[in-house]
């Protein structure tokens, strides 16, 4: 299956067939929010545009997104394979991307560069916006216990199309350093 076969789903998400992963995610979040909440663009037409119409649209949007995610996963595994063979050909070239340490600050920067708003992450991950903000600011003392935090970080990473394990490892490493410091003070 190539992108051509997914034309319909790109159309429903109002995207060009060459859209990037982020454009797809961002379009999905935007449309989800648009048709599930009242806003100044919906309410003037709400009496004609019934709840049922909107539910139908949401269903199509969800379905299209799910289909496109399958497409992306397939494309991703193909390109991973390509990258691997490239990396083994050229020695250490492939490692460059892994050099970043995913601190809260780094995550925030990546998110901003991608043009994704916190509320979009919140919608996608079901993590409260205040919590996401604290994660980015590394307010470790007001974050939930480690097990929950790990889950949050992993979801957040997935939302930004980052490698969840690498991000969680980096972030939790920083978290533990802070924890040890607090312990030492006491």
């Amino acid at each position, binding site marked *: 299956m190539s992108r051509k076969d997914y034309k319909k789903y790109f159309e429903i998400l*109002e995207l060009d067939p060459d859209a*990037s992963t*982020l*454009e797809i995610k*961002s379009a999905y979040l*935007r*449309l989800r929010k*648009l*048709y599930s909440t009242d*806003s*100044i*663009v*919906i*309410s*003037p*037409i709400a009496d*004609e*545009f019934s709840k049922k*119409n909107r539910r139908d*649209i949401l269903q199509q949007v969800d379905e299209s997104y799910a289909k496109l995610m399958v497409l992306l996963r397939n494309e991703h595994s193909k390109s991973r394979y390509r990258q691997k063979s490239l990396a083994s050909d050229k020695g250490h070239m492939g490692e460059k991307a892994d050099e970043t340490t995913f601190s809260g600050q780094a995550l925030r920067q990546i998110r901003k*560069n*991608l*043009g994704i*708003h916190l509320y979009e992450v919140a919608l996608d991950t079901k993590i409260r916006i205040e919590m996401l903000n604290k994660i980015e600011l590394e307010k470790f003392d007001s974050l939930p216990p480690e097990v929950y935090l790990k889950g949050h970080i992993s979801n957040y990473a997935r939302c930004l199309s980052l490698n969840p394990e690498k991000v969680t490892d980096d972030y939790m490493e920083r978290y533990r350093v802070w924890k040890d410091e607090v312990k030492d003070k006491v």
Partner: protein
Amino acid sequence: MEKLRDEKGGKIWAIGGGKGGTGKTFIVSSIGTYLAKNRKRVVLIDVDIGGANLHSFLGISRPKKSLTNFFDMGTPLKDLVVKTGIGNMSLITGDIHSLASDSIIFTQKLKLFRHIMKLNRQYVIIDLGGGSHNNTIDTFLMADKMIAVVEPEIIAVENMYHFIKNALFRKLRMSLKEYGFKEIIDHMWEKRERYKIKNLRELIGCLKDSFSYVGDILDREISGFKIYIILNKVRSSQDIFIGSSIKSILLKYLGINAKFVGYIEYDDSIWRSVRERRPFMLTYSLSRSAKEIEAFTENLIQGKEMRLMRS
């Protein structure tokens, strides 16, 4: 309805949108100035019912002759054209008695458009002003590019939906008339209670369900009905999404292909330039707003949408 095309490649852009005060006249003058600066021959035509004042945005006094002279006294159109002080760009002004009145019938308007094309300009930009008057809408429908200006504010959005729905209804009605099916749409709309129709969407649905041949015509006409949206007075990055939301709703609600071509941030230097009666695109040519205007004008020329994602 057939668009009026010029053999010499002249393009007519009409700028409307339903609500007054959203900045249409400012946008017309700025698009015109940008095109003229890029060595395009441009004529601006002001048919704003609520008060033609495009000349003020260009810093010139009200032209003595208006379209009334053309309609009532047969004055040649080229005698109404005045210079704007900006090279390559001229202006024709209308007034309350000309295009606004219902006495100007459709054939007269066709005549006006024919004469406009004879002026030999590359771009003809029409300022429609606010309102969803039939006369305004018919002029809108005759243009090559139908451009709607809206601001991130509920009344403006509501009026724009109203404007676009009216425009689509009139367009469909006119096309069905050409095929001899006008009675069907009129009948169905008049007896809408019996057909359980409450709005344009349901009317289109009901027509399609009842007559498949009419459905084909409607599909074709709707897919040819393209609207370009400009969002003015944007105050936050979240406001920008309103442009793409409107586009989405028009598509998913009425099947209308709209393109969100760009936006202008709210900018005090804009009203300052208007107050000082100086063309914004010349006085503040390096400002962010001027760059935004350039960007959407380019998108309009190429028929492209603005890309939302920043890289």
